[in-house]
């Protein structure tokens, strides 16, 4: 081999921007198909929003995403993630503590669940079975669509028409009543949807939580019934709707993916933020990094959200005007905050009976839909919620690797928290005040909580944007609203993972089917890429 060739930088078949879970998954599939793949990651660590970080003492924080269930089992199997160290530990349902000192817990055991709901409303205990069955039916309808590329309804290509027919047929097979249920379900508000089943405030409030997590919508906004479903679509060992912890924190997911990638010959470069997508003759041919180096590649695959990708890295002149405008109009709103708390011991919650397993599940303190809706009203006025909805978990009870002996790590997801405050930009004082609002809300249900706090990391959408890179800190890389789902995600006409720039693909949660640590966008993007390169399907 001539000496000059050695000095020439390696040209990759594909370069992937961002080592989040979707970037990793897309890279894994491409590497397995024999492509040479490099991931460039801006941070000094990989994982994007699926990370485990040691920010205080020997505590491990899942400091962005915090639970695992949506990760598609087929991805887990194909990429052999268990062999690469991923272990998911399921937990039982959680509970909502009520302002009157009572609580509602959800149990896996059907009889226990019925007894528990009956305490609040015997009628709702009956309705719950109907509710669970209907949710399951919707899940079954939608699940196969997650791992498929959405059709373009404006296209006359055989592939798009066949896909539309496939959807139509699946829909039609449900039968008349279910078809109407589905139509209504997809468009209703969560509050209206739950009203059709339940009468008790606490049951509705507990179930409605999933409908607002990560969205800039309230439980009364049409479309939130779908968001509810989005959080139900996970399964662990075929238990639909089950949730679990990744042993070692959410970073374990991306660590396993990275290990799987390396095993297939892929490379990862950290501290290598992409500055610009290089194009030549209108085609993406590589990326320029912040340190001035350039990476040449056959194709570029962006795991970043669409705004960051196309408004930040691509020259405006390389994009059609309409596309650029639609990316600008893409709704990606910061609405969630996060507290990661190191605790000296397990806090007590008087509302939860001694020994009840729900303490190991998700804990909430919002006991009416109205309280949730009012929390949303604060967000609309660009304030953080004065009585926020929180999703609290203490994974160290199940996974001892998360905290030193006897001590505990608590993850507190907070809805709502705006990206921009009416009073101006975020600063330290406001961040502390936001954290204080959340801690005070929790302390009302736990007398010893405050004094057990050893350290608290407070993260606003602004912080999440700056650290993780998600625009406005939106955890889904774009609102999960009707106008941004399926063939509209991220923008109409570009829902098939390709961008208007030849050779530039999208694989992040901005694409179908959206966010959560699900991995479907990454896998779908890889499938489209391999198809374009005539390398066959995913394997």
């Amino acid at each position, binding site marked *: 081999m001539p000496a000059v060739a050695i000095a020439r930088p390696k040209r990759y078949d594909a370069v992937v921007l961002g080592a989040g879970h979707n970037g990793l998954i897309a890279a894994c599939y491409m590497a397995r198909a024999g492509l040479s793949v490099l991931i460039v990651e801006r941070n000094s660590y990989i994982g994007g929003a699926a990370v485990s970080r040691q920010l205080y003492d020997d505590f491990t924080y899942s400091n962005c995403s915090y639970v695992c269930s949506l990760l598609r089992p087929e991805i887990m199997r194909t990429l052999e993630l268990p062999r690469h160290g991923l272990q998911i530990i399921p937990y039982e349902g959680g509970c909502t503590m009520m302002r009157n000192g009572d609580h509602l817990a959800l149990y896996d055991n059907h009889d226990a669940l019925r007894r528990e709901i009956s305490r609040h409303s015997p009628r709702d205990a009956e309705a719950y079975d109907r509710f669970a069955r209907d949710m399951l039916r919707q899940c079954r309808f939608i699940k196969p669509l997650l791992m498929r590329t959405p059709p373009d309804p404006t296209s006359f290509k055989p592939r798009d028409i066949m896909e539309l027919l496939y959807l139509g047929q699946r829909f039609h097979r449900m039968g008349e*009543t279910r*078809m109407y249920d589905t139509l209504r379900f997809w*468009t209703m508000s969560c509050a209206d949807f739950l009203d059709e089943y339940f009468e008790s405030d606490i049951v509705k409030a507990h179930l409605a939580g999933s409908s607002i997590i990560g969205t800039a919508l309230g439980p009364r*906004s*049409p479309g939130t019934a779908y968001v509810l479903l989005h959080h139900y679509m996970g399964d662990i060992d075929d238990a639909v709707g089950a949730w679990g912890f990744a042993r070692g924190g959410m970073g374990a997911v991306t660590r396993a993916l990275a290990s799987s990638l390396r095993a297939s010959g892929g490379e990862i470069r950290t501290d290598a933020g992409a500055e610009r997508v290089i194009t030549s003759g209108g085609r993406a041919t590589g990326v320029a990094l912040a340190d001035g180096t350039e990476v040449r590649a056959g194709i570029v695959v962006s795991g970043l959200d669409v705004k960051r990708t196309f408004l930040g890295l691509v020259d405006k002149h390389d994009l059609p005007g309409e596309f650029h405008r639609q990316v600008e*109009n893409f709704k990606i709103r910061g609405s969630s905050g996060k507290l990661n708390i190191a605790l000296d011991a397990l806090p007590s919650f008087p509302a939860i009976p001694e020994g009840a397993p729900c303490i190991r599940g998700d804990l909430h303190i919002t006991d009416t839909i*109205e309280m949730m809706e009012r929390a949303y009203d604060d967000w609309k006025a660009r304030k953080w919620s004065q009585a926020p909805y929180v999703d609290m978990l203490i994974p160290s009870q199940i996974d001892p690797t998360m905290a030193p002996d006897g001590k505990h790590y608590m993850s507190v997801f907070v809805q709502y928290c705006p990206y921009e405050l009416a009073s101006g930009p975020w600063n330290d004082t406001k961040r502390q005040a936001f954290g204080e609002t959340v801690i005070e809300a929790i302390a009302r249900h736990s007398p010893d909580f405050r004094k057990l706090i050893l350290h608290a990391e407070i993260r606003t959408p602004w912080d999440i944007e700056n650290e993780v890179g998600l625009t406005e800190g939106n955890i889904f890389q774009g609102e999960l609203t009707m106008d941004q789902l399926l063939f509209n995600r991220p923008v109409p006409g570009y829902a098939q993972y390709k961008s208007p720039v030849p050779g530039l693909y999208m694989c992040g949660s901005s694409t179908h089917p959206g966010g959560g640590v699900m991995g479907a966008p990454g896998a779908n993007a890889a499938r489209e890429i391999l198809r374009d390169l005539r390398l066959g399907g995913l394997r």
Partner: protein
Amino acid sequence: MSDRYQAIVIGAGHNGLSCAAYLARAGKRVLVLEAASRVGGAAVTREFAPGFSISACAHLLHQMPRTIVNELGLASHGLKFAAERMATILLSENGDNVRLPAQAGGVLSASDVASYSAFMVRMRRFAAHLRPMLDATPPRLGSGAWEDSAALLRLAWCIRSLGRTDMRELLRIFGMNVYDLAAEHFEAPALRAAIAFDALLGTNAGPRTPGTVLTLLYRLATEHGAAPAGMSQPVGGLGAVSDALATVARAAGAEIRTGVRVARVHIRNDRAAGVLLEDGTIIEGGHIISNADPRTSFFGLLGTEYLDTGFVRRVDHFRQSGQAAKVHLALSSPPMFRNLHPDGLRERLLIAPSLDYLENAYNASKYGEYSDAPAIEIVVPSASDSALAPPGLHVVSAIVQYAPYAHKAGWHTVRGAFLERVIDTIEAYAPGLRQSILHSELLTPADIETEFGISGGQWHHGDLAFDQFFMVRPVPGAAQYETPVANFFLCGAGAHPGGGVMAVAGRNAALQVLKKAA
């Protein structure tokens, strides 16, 4: 049996009357029964103070399609206009009023004026393509009938025929909220709010509620193909529309009886076979068609014993709580809005300064409270039609949002305070208004329920929302004007395509009845 009625319409609202007119014209023997002492339902003119008349519920005519006006010959049966092609003026507290359609040289920037006309052209194009859906019976899913498949294909074609770019845009905006859409296109807060106001009028939604672009498209689609008078005020108020429809129906041979309250639909062999009046008489009829809202139709007139539980549950969950109140004022002098030429009183006036104002107004209604700063649509009918008030005096009609049907404190305790809030709000735009008030009247949704017999007091008979539109309106199983009980039909605003004085549901229902009877 030759004297037996072939069709009995319960309720003489505009839809009941148009249904009766079309059936009578097709040669059917039709009887219309109306509980009130006059026809018209919510399209009615009545005296609210000595010498002062008002359109008591609906106060503008802008959705009645040309086809119905022409087919029934309403013009030759007495329908005349006091004001036509009314403009919309968005009032400003400091007098920077915005007139729509937007023109250069006004308060708006040149770029907003250009965006406005481009936006309206595109939205009207969408509306034109959606319009045919309003004038036909919605398809029924899974029926296997060729006509339902054909209707679905027609819908697909209506959207596809927009061309790729517009089709994509329609599919994108369809599920959006009007807040984002308006912010995408316009700079001026007033212009954004004016667009949003039209999307929100009569709904249970705020500008940020997804589905409000749909309601905007719906409004534009109903206005597409409307009579040339456009946004108009009939001579004699909205009651004149009902009177014209009644005249047409009678001329075609329909019999209309007022002051007759139907107690129940008479069922024989599981089929609707007549009506039972409150006095115990039974009138037999071939088809029984209810102009009442779905709840009243199924629970009041029919009775749940004839329906299966799933259907009953659906009707029970049909959302039909009104959020809009009416305020009527009798004035000793014309209201003086800041910077508004007296001719401006003949237009449609809005108080809706910004999107956030509208959203805040909506927030209150979610928790069973009225808006402290309400959004208001004002017309001064006497400015165009002096017969509505004594000489020199005036009447004002205002639709006020939001006022929830069930106020959490009970309307009887807060109605006075609410009326004061409304007057104060208008006064801020029209100083001196309060001194000129001779009489005032407030109709909360609860009052509208009582006066017009609409359960929930919602003039659309049911919220306009995705899950209550088109082939699921009012509920699956009754969305084709037919109901689970043979020979019992719906023809009111609770059926497709919904409310607003347009008489389309009545016409569609009549055509469906005729098809089934054929």
